[in-house]
């Protein structure tokens, strides 16, 4: 699905492997880097991302933690202050709620409270998203929610390039970066340049260009959106597809440049509709391009319901390709 940008030699791998490569590279190249979290070591990672890494790097650097989300996220902050470059894996975003105090009240505020003295070069990775019938406590998509918090950065690698390349840049960042990996992407297969490496963690990317509408999305919804764009094409509607890549900061320039041209936009995200990141993007477009829009901005989000277990209900709750197509088509019809 995903493909390498450059021209050089490429290879096939999964998103999971791309993340693992990035982790291994970071640990190999910088002694200060270590991975810490529940079951990252012996078990090989809940989603098998860190499988085999314990053998290569040892248990000090592939550090299994007890079930103590708040303490080990906080310990990550402390270790970052102490000169290390910790990568804390919170198994899934669902459990990160137990560590939210450390993230919001400490990681995000420390630099500011100390008048600029203490930067927190912490990377937190977590799996996010629904779609695996894991029901109401295991299917949150809260990355857009986290984007409300000043002092942290939120990135959402959706492509193999980003899975492979964002970690490195996040580790070089002096401030806390939260990386959200959508659970549905781990098995995604694609090609990647042999020499794929670090990529910026800021800035959106236009993955497909069109004239009639801007489809704006990120993470797990990217492939649905690309599929929708394909379907729209066959209806004669061509679409820009923007992968936001970073939710905080948002890349206003790329979003506005696209929408200014297409004059119509659909935002797709897996957060619950009310207060999702789509609302923020709609607000920004409205603020900046009010006079230029040809149709109300549409959004396709998750239904406002804790995720049901039953498959047909979960499917109905999540954004779908037909919904995206329908929303895009609505932007094409004139008048109110």
């Amino acid at each position, binding site marked *: 699905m995903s493909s390498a940008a450059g021209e050089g030699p490429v290879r096939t791998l999964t998103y999971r492997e791309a993340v693992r490569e990035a982790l291994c590279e970071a640990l190999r190249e910088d002694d200060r880097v270590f991975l810490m979290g529940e079951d990252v070591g012996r078990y090989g990672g809940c989603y098998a991302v860190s499988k085999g890494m314990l053998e290569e790097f040892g248990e000090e650097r592939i550090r299994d933690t007890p079930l103590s989300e708040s303490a080990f996220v906080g310990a990550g902050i402390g270790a970052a202050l102490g000169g290390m470059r910790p990568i804390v894996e919170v198994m899934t975003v669902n459990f990160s709620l137990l560590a939210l105090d450390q993230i919001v009240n400490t990681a995000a505020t420390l630099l500011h409270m100390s008048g600029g003295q203490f930067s927190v070069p912490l990377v937190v990775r977590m799996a996010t998203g629904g779609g*695996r019938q894991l029901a109401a406590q295991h299917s949150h998509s809260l990355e857009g929610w986290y984007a409300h918090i000043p002092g942290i950065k939120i990135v959402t690698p959706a492509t193999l390039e980003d899975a492979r390349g964002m970690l490195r840049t996040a580790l070089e960042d002096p401030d806390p970066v939260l990386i959200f990996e959508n659970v549905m992407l781990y098995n995604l297969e694609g090609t990647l340049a042999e020499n794929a490496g670090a990529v910026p963690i800021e800035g959106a990317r236009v993955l497909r260009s069109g004239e009639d509408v801007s489809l704006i999305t990120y993470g797990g919804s990217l492939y649905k959106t690309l599929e929708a764009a394909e379907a729209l094409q066959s209806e004669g509607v061509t679409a820009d597809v923007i992968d936001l890549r970073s939710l905080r900061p948002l890349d206003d320039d790329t979003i506005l440049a696209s929408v200014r041209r297409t004059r119509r936009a659909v935002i797709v995200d897996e957060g619950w509709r009310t207060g999702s990141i789509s609302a923020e993007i709609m607000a920004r477009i409205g603020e900046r391009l009010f006079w230029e829009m040809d149709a109300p901005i549409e959004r396709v989000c998750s239904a406002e319901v804790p995720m049901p277990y039953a498959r047909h209900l979960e499917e109905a709750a999540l954004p779908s390709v037909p919904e995206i197509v329908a929303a895009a088509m609505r932007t094409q019809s004139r008048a109110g």
Partner: protein
Amino acid sequence: MSDARHAGPDLPDRDDALALLRGMLLIRRFEEKSAELYTQEKIRGFLHLYIGQEAIAAGAIGVLRPEDAIVATYREHGHALARGISADAVMAEMFGKVEGCSLGRGGSMHIFDAATRFYGGNAIVGGGLPLAVGLALADKMQNRSRVTACFFGEGAVAEGEFHESLNLAALWNLPVLFCCENNLYAMGTALERSESEVDVSLKAASYQIPAWPIDGMDVLAVRDATRRAVDAVRQGGGPYFLEFRTYRFRPHSMFDAELYREKDEVETWKRRDPIPAFSTRMFDAGVVAPEDVAMLETDVEGEIDRAVRFAEEGTLEPVEDLLRHVYTERTEP
């Protein structure tokens, strides 16, 4: 309590022994069937089997009265069945059918049943403990002599919610029975790799809560300890903590490659399988005969087959109802 551990509980009579055995067998076969149905993709999501730990649910839950409450985890089919929730309702739930005990909205990890005061089915490790404290608080404030039994794994001991909840229960002298099922692993993390103090009962005792380790592979020991504990709690003695030492024979969930433990260790524990352990003991004591077990097996098999059929034949909730049960449906006055 210490007496009990040394002398050992009395031998059960035939009916009693058969009931205990049936309780364990039902869970075992139900779980085996669930594993099968999972590979057939009839059951989806996460599936955590209780195989190896049956003596705990079967031994402890029978002691509770109907008015008592239960709080459990995502590894809770055993507790649900032991509590008397029908195999039909649990199976249908895992099939995602309306006939399931949670309408198919919960799945394997979220078995709920108001009729038997079964409060889930919590998939956040440690998340059920505060809930149990609150249920017990409500009983105490309303002068009801009910007990809330809260089941959780030893992995939960590291969570802040464990600490806060035990303190609250002890401080307020609440009728909670904390049942820690120490199966030595939290996913792939062995207890000694997650706790500086591996004696879980000792940890609990530091809240001034009476706490005992119990052989969780011995259904009679489990029942006996639970009886004494429940009596103490019901009489207003405040919370009680039982650490059931046990082992899960299967992987953590259906996704687990079991890289973290030796096959040998698993085999050693399997030799202590609570079901043959108990039946052999009952054979030896002449309380139960092998034919009885064969009959129980047939009976249980029938119950499970019916449950699978029930689940298969169940209906899916209409998609139009997606947004229901987010807020309570009130009939306008």
